[in-house]
Structure formats: structure tokens, C-alpha cells
């Protein structure tokens, strides 16, 4: 098992198919990142809301 | 009636929450045959909501309903067979005449076969065959009330039955109520007006 690309340029080009491959991996990274971040932020916001409600309650 | 017989409809510890807002809490009451219960309260107090819960159109957040002693979700079939409910909008098809409207309702509910007398009793003798869309607001409400004269249901649940009804009409409704109570039926209704009947009990909803 060895490295298939010998330069960054080669890696980006991927023998002419770079656009497709990198677009797919890029969009996948964005979508999957959003999938993780969204519930985390929602969780944090919910906790913050409960907290501020508690403070107002006092 | 023996005092030991269970009430027709009994509800206890009802509370209802919608969108995280507690509308009412621990509301309770009961009606026996011959009882009439008026739900009163300010606009938005939850009268409509309570009546819809009693009619099993909404599920209470907490609390239970009993029909003739049987817990309600289970006794629903026999309950519905004896319930007449009239909501804010009365369920008439605007394209059908009063007679046709009462006829299709008769197919779904146990009703006496006296549609014309019932319509005449609410003052619509001339309007048997006019499409409801061409009747005035009050006349449409009267058609809906005519159903009550036909139904064999023992419990009536009526949300603001007097809306849009003129003075003479109110007297007609009171007469309807009276004869239903005398024949052992029960009525739960909401209204901002007082009705002229003996023995009305009140259930007041206040904001919690």
C-alpha cells in the first residue's frame, strides 16, 4: 500500500477528475459538519434558555 | 333517579396544556340526567377547549372523563352514541338546504324522523329547501339548533349556542333545553349570556 500521488498538484487534479472528487468530498464535509453542529448548537441554546428562565424565575 | 347511580358524565382533575402554556388545571364537574351546566369565563379562558375535551375531540394533558361510570377512552363508542356536540362552526354544508343537511346528519346519528317539525320549531318553516349559504348568520345557527330537537342523545355539549340568535330565538332555545332536561337529558354549554332556566349550575374558568 503506497501513496498514489506524488505532488499536491497531482492530488488536486486526480488525473482530470479532481473537480468531481473534491466537490463530492467538500460538500460531504459541509453537510456532515452541519449535521453535527446543528444539534450541538440547539442543545446549547436550550440549556441557555432554561438557565435564563431560572434566573428570571428567582 | 337513585342518588347512587353514576353521573352521566363526570370529569375530574382535568388540566390542559398547549404550547407549554397551562390553560387550566384540576377542573372538575359532573352532570346527571336533568342537569344543566354552563361554562363561563372570559375570552380565552378555555371554554371551547374544555368543551372539546369533554367531547373527546381533544385529549386532556391530565385528568379523566367517565361516561356512566366507565372510563372514557374505553367507553367511547357508547358515549358517542349518546352525545350531541355543537361547535363554533355548526357543520352544515352551505350548498345543501336545511332539510338535506339534517338528513345526512340523521344517517350518522340516532335521530327522530321529524326534520320538518324540527325546522318549523326554530322558525324556518319557509326555508326547508333554500341552500344554507343563502341563509343569514342567525338562520344558519338555527338550522344547527334544529338538530337538537331531533337527536336522541342524552348529553348535549354546545359551544355558544346563542351566538347570532335573536331574542325570539333565545326563547326557542330555552324551550328546547327545558324539554330535554325534563326527559332526563343533560346539557353542558358555554355562553356569555345567561339563560332563563331554573337550576343552571355554573363552572367558571379563570386564568391559572
Amino acid at each position, binding site marked *: *500500500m503506497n501513496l498514489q500521488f506524488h505532488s499536491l498538484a497531482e492530488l488536486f487534479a486526480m488525473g482530470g*477528475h479532481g473537480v468531481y*472528487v473534491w466537490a*463530492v468530498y467538500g460538500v460531504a464535509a459541509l*453537510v456532515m459538519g452541519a449535521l453535527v453542529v446543528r444539534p450541538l448548537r440547539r442543545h446549547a441554546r436550550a440549556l441557555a434558555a432554561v438557565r435564563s428562565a431560572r434566573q428570571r424565575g428567582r | 333517579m337513585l342518588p347512587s347511580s353514576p353521573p352521566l358524565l363526570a370529569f375530574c382533575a382535568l388540566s390542559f396544556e398547549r404550547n407549554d402554556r397551562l390553560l387550566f388545571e384540576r377542573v372538575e364537574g359532573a352532570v346527571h340526567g336533568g342537569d344543566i351546566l354552563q361554562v363561563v369565563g372570559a375570552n380565552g379562558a378555555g371554554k371551547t377547549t374544555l368543551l372539546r375535551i369533554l367531547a373527546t375531540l381533544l385529549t386532556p394533558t391530565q385528568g379523566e372523563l367517565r361516561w356512566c361510570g366507565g372510563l372514557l377512552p374505553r367507553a367511547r363508542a357508547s358515549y358517542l352514541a349518546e352525545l350531541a356536540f355543537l361547535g363554533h362552526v355548526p357543520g352544515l354544508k352551505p350548498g345543501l338546504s336545511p332539510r338535506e343537511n339534517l338528513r345526512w346528519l340523521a344517517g350518522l346519528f340516532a335521530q327522530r324522523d321529524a326534520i320538518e317539525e324540527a325546522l318549523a320549531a326554530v322558525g324556518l318553516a319557509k326555508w326547508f329547501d333554500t341552500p344554507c349559504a343563502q341563509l343569514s348568520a342567525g338562520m344558519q345557527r338555527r338550522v344547527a339548533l334544529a338538530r337538537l330537537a331531533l337527536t336522541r342523545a342524552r348529553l348535549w355539549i354546545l359551544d355558544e349556542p346563542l351566538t347570532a340568535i335573536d331574542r325570539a330565538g333565545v326563547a326557542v332555545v330555552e324551550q328546547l333545553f327545558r324539554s330535554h332536561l325534563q326527559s332526563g337529558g343533560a346539557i353542558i354549554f358555554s355562553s356569555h349570556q345567561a339563560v332563563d332556566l331554573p337550576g343552571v349550575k355554573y363552572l367558571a374558568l379563570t386564568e391559572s
Partner: protein
Amino acid sequence: MAERRWQWFHRLASPPGFYRVSGRWLPWLAGTSLALLAVGVVWGLLYAPPDARQGNSYRIIFLHVPASFLALAGYYVMAAAGAIHLIWRVKLADVVMSAAAPLGAALTFLALFSGSLWGKPTWGTYWVWDARITSMLVLLFLYLGVVTLRQAYASRETAGRACAVLALVGTVNIPIIYKSVDWWYSLHQPATIRLTAAPSMHPDMFQPLVVMILAFYLFYAWVLVLNVRAEILVRERRAGWVRDLAGEGESE
């Protein structure tokens, strides 16, 4: 013995119970899925040999196939959760369902997107009306239907039950829809292009694919749990245990 098993079940099925238990799973799920993803991506992009016919474009497979798998599996998760909610009235099931729908839609989108971009270098077009592709598209519509239906209702309880009915109707229909699309493919004259099946995949390509598939399963579980936990907090924000939880965070 049986009783203890049921206790365990009830604890897990109650929102606060699930919230507490799942908190312990999180680091593991996050760690393993991210690690496997990293390994799989580096392996697939840098080390796996190029395909004899497709060259480097085939590297899309390492995202495309796992995304497709999870998109399909996700629907069953969602439909099962909906059915459980409707039949046994388990609240947690509704939470799972509400979390699974957008997640599944996102993965279906990824599968379609990656397949579509893959199609350009291999088939010369972004899209053909192939049976599998079409059924994937229908799946996307099914997901989006559930997502939108839930958003459309103001009341959460109503939305939950309505979506459950839809999912249940879907459950009955999904196999029919898939089968029919397959039949459609064979009923009409065969299309000029076929999905290249992968019976004789080289192990050097196959191994990173397996890693990625595993990574995606773990990722799915992780994100699902994250969503469920967030949704539980939002729904139970007025419950005592949530207020206590918020208080703990405060004192830190």
C-alpha cells in the same frame, strides 16, 4: 430477571433516562466515528489504487456507497420509530423519528449528489433514469414529506402523530415502491447505462470502503443521538431534571 430487563427498558425509553445514558455513549461514538472517517478518507483518497477503467473518479465510491446505505437504513429507523410511537405511544420514539427524518434526508441528498457527480466522468451525464437512482429520488421525496409535515403543524403532539401515520403508510409502501421501480427498469427496454456492480472489487479498494461504511454507521448513530438529546432538552425544558441540569452547568 425479566423484570430487571423491563426496568432497563423503561429507563432507556423515558426521555430523562435516555438523556443520561446516552451522555455516556457520546464520547465513544464521536471518537470512533471521527477516527474511522479520518482513516477511511485518507486511505481512500491517498492510498487506494486508481481503478483500471474509471481512474481516480471512482474515489467517490468511499462516500457514495456509505451514504446510500445509511440513507436506506435511515428510513427504516424513522418508520420503525414512527410505528412504535403510534402503536405503543412511546414518547422517545417520536423524538427519534423527528431526528431521523432530516438526517436521512441529508444523507439521501449526499448519495444523490455524489452519485450524480460521479456520473459525469463515468457516463458523461449527471443523471440517468435508472431504477436505483429513481428509487433514491423517491426516497428523498418521502423524507422531505415527513420533514415538512412536521414543520407544518403548530402543535408538537399533533405533528408527531401525523408524521407517524405517514411513516406507517410509508412502511407498507416502501417495498412496493422499490420493487416497482426495479420492475419499471426491466419492463421498459434496458437503459443504455448500468450501475457498475462491484462483485470483483480489489481488496485494496474494498477495505477502505468497509472502513467508511462502518464510519458512516457510527456517524449516523452519533448524530442521531445528538439530535435526540437536543430535542429532549427542548421538549422537557420545563421539567425539573432539565432545570437541575442547567443549574449544574451554572455552578461550574
